[in-house]
């Protein structure tokens, strides 16, 4: 058997980079941090590619079944003989795929940032955090048990918080980082309770034991129930809550658009390609258990589908290009969730699972590419807003081409990668539930529309007066763009059904043209509408917005979800729960303590007068006391 224990270094290298850059970064020139970080990650990337090659093509497949391998394991915390927390590296198709995704996108973000953040204050701090994030994300994907995953899950949350708040002098960035942290923390509370429920009833944290068909979760599921549903269902729903928080599913999505306050490469890496798909990865990781609790799986599907539609509608109305991309990310992750929710187990039944992972993989490329392109555009015009852009195709040729490729990929135009993965999702949804299929079908059209709205708005449309002529980004930024563009173009040809499947058996995939052709058509319709509306400045968008007055307003204001949250937290929780409790604490609890100290103070103030330091006064009191006592004892106390 091939020894995979070297894979621990894929995870540990970014950790050591974090230590190195974090503690020694300010001793050298800022550029050194960027080069060291990128070089270190390059080693991780090479190791990941090597691992993928070894796993998928050399040792992983035995009789057309991919093996689950514990590459490295160490006992970390021991509770009982069966319940203990390990730290290790778990090698199976999805974790290897995620290794590729994370290291690739992270490497690209590292290289890109050397150009994008050149000369920024806190350059080495940025690289330290980026390494920390990469370490945490890699630790998450290779987790051998759910608790290790939880630890790294929180660690990615922290590094995401740190990176969103990178420009900590801006109030909005600080608020956004806090929002992201608090919302995901709230979701993680559910995750933690889910983990505890699951581990309590199953007696193990280990993924291998949990997902084995004869294991304590699937083979002999716990019989306990709570409010009509089995404990296992509750556990899986709560765990999904954690995943939904991280993956910005409705209604826990509110942090993602605000998280765009971070530097753009961070958005590309964390909030598009890697961290936000952690929820999808989590569900996929526990998929064998989800398949046994249909209610939870149904929830996953509907939450995913609704989120994708919801986000797509909002994306059509936004003007901040990064926010459009953020909503697009949410929409695409909704796709992946939905695909998982409609999937079955094994062979062609597990098409949704495979499609979800496929889409995760291709999405990482084209969405990271979109964000990095957006970064290049913002870098050139110093604005986030669509209406301050236009006619940029002459100034930014490379960005233009790569952005177009990414748009075609996300819109699902063959032969770009998005077509293949999205098509499989639609097929899976079609075979499972027509309603879900229709939603996803509409979303596909909307996706094409809003992406090309961006494309035409930025690169065509009315030419703006810029302060200085926009210039193409430096090589350090364009090279990652070109690399990712190749990924976005050709990733679709990877035969995923031979690599990543629900039960790790390979199966043959056939393109169902009856679904594929309509999906291409609706994508083309979306592009065509965008073409008509945005190629040249026209009055059509304004008229449509006017016609859909209320609906447009609602979508523009993100359906008032933020306001709803504010209402619930401030008006209901703060005003009616927290404030009375605070009042009680301040007036009753503190008051009694203050009262005691006040009384003591006053009393001592009064008593202090007795101690005048006048010796004769003391003597007088003493003698008169003695005389009075003598009188009392002689005459009164007979």
């Amino acid at each position, binding site marked *: 058997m091939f020894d995979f224990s070297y894979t621990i270094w894929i995870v540990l290298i970014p950790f050591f980079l974090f230590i190195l850059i974090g503690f020694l970064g300010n001793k050298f020139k800022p550029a050194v941090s960027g080069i060291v970080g990128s070089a270190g990650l390059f080693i991780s990337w090479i190791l990941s590619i090597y691992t993928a090659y070894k796993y998928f093509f050399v040792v992983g497949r035995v009789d057309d079944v991919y093996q689950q391998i514990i590459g490295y394991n160490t006992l970390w915390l021991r509770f009982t003989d069966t319940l203990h927390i390990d730290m290790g590296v778990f090698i199976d198709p999805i974790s290897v795929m995620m290794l590729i995704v994370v290291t690739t996108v992270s490497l690209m973000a590292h290289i890109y940032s050397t150009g994008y953040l050149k000369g920024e204050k806190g350059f080495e701090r940025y690289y330290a955090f980026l390494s920390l994030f990469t370490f945490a994300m890699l630790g998450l994907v290779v987790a051998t048990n759910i608790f290790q995953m939880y630890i790294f899950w929180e660690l990615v949350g922290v590094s995401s918080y740190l990176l969103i708040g990178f420009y900590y002098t801006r109030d909005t960035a600080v608020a956004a980082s806090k929002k992201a942290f608090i919302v995901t923390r709230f979701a993680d509370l559910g995750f933690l309770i889910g983990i505890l429920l699951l581990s309590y009833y199953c007696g193990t944290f280990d993924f291998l034991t949990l997902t084995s068909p004869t294991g304590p979760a699937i083979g002999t599921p716990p019989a306990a129930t709570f409010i009509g549903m089995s404990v296992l269902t509750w556990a899986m729903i709560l765990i999904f809550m954690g995943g939904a928080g991280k993956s910005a599913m409705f209604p826990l999505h509110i942090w993602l658009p605000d998280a765009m306050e971070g530097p753009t490469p961070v958005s590309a890496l964390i909030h598009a390609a890697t961290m936000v798909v952690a929820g999808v990865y989590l569900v996929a990781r526990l998929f064998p258990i989800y398949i046994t609790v249909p209610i939870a799986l149904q929830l996953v599907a509907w939450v995913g589908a609704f989120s994708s539609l919801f986000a797509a509608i909002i994306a059509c109305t936004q003007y901040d290009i990064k926010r459009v991309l953020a909503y697009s990310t949410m929409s695409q992750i909704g796709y992946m969730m939905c695909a998982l929710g409609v999937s079955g187990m094994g062979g062609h039944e597990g098409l949704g699972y495979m499609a979800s992972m496929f889409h995760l993989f291709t999405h990482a490329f084209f969405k990271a590419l979109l964000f990095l392109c957006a970064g290049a555009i913002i870098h050139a015009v110093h604005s986030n807003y669509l209406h301050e852009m236009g006619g940029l195709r002459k100034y930014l040729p490379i960005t233009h081409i790569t952005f177009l490729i990414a748009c075609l990929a996300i819109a699902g135009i063959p032969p770009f990668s998005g077509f293949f993965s999205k098509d499989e999702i639609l097929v899976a949804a079609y075979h499972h539930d027509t309603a879900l299929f229709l939603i996803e079908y509409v979303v596909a059209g909307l996706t094409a529309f809003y992406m090309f709205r961006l494309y035409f708005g930025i690169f065509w449309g009315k030419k703006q007066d810029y302060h200085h002529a926009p210039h193409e980004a430096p090589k350090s930024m364009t090279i990652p763009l070109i690399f990712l563009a190749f990924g976005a173009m050709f990733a679709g040809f990877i035969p995923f059904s031979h690599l990543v499947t629900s039960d790790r058996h390979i199966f043959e995939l056939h393109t169902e043209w009856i679904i594929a052709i309509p999906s291409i058509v609706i994508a083309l319709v979306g592009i065509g509408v965008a073409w008509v509306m945005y190629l040249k400045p026209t009055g059509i968008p304004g008229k449509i917005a006017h016609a859909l007055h209320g609906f447009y307003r609602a979508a523009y204001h993100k359906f008032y979800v933020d306001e709803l949250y504010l209402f619930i937290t401030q008006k209901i929780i703060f005003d009616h729960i927290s404030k009375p409790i605070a009042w009680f604490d301040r007036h009753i609890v503190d008051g009694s303590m203050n009262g005691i100290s006040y009384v003591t103070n006053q009393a001592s103030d009064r008593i202090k007068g007795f101690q005048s330091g006048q010796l*004769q006064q003391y003597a*007088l009191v003493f003698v008169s006391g*003695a005389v009075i006592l003598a*009188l009392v004892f*002689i005459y009164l106390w007979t």
Partner: protein
Amino acid sequence: MTSNQFMFLLFSAVIVIFSILTVTSRRILRAATFLLFVLVSTAGLYFLLKYNFLAAIQLTLYAGGIVVLIIFSILLTSHIAEKLPTASLMKKWPAAMVALVGAALCIVVILQYNFPGSVGSTELVNVTDIGENLISYGRHGYALPFEVISVLLLAAMIGAIVLAKKRKD
């Protein structure tokens, strides 16, 4: 009135009058002198009680030692001509009240109590007996208090020297 009664009353009168003068005189050196009279009269009382040795100690130690010490310290710290300020009435009245009430209480109690009358021996106490008792450790022996008081005196002596010594700085 026997001669003893007469002598007692004489000494008592001297003691009481000069005690009061001691605590009321505004000239401090006079107060010390009045104190000397009081102490000497007390020694007279001891003679009356046929405690000649004790009276001698009283004269030498109290009158000769302590009063001289007090006079020295008065000369060190005060001007002889200086008149002490009188205490305020606020201070005098409570003190006088306490003293009067206490004295009255004690006197009333003493008069009410019927002491067993016993004719005390008129013979002198032998100095040899005093000396033997002071260094014997049996019944009626005072060897331990004697040693303790010696140590105390030594400690007081050293302490007084250390306290009164001029600081170097």
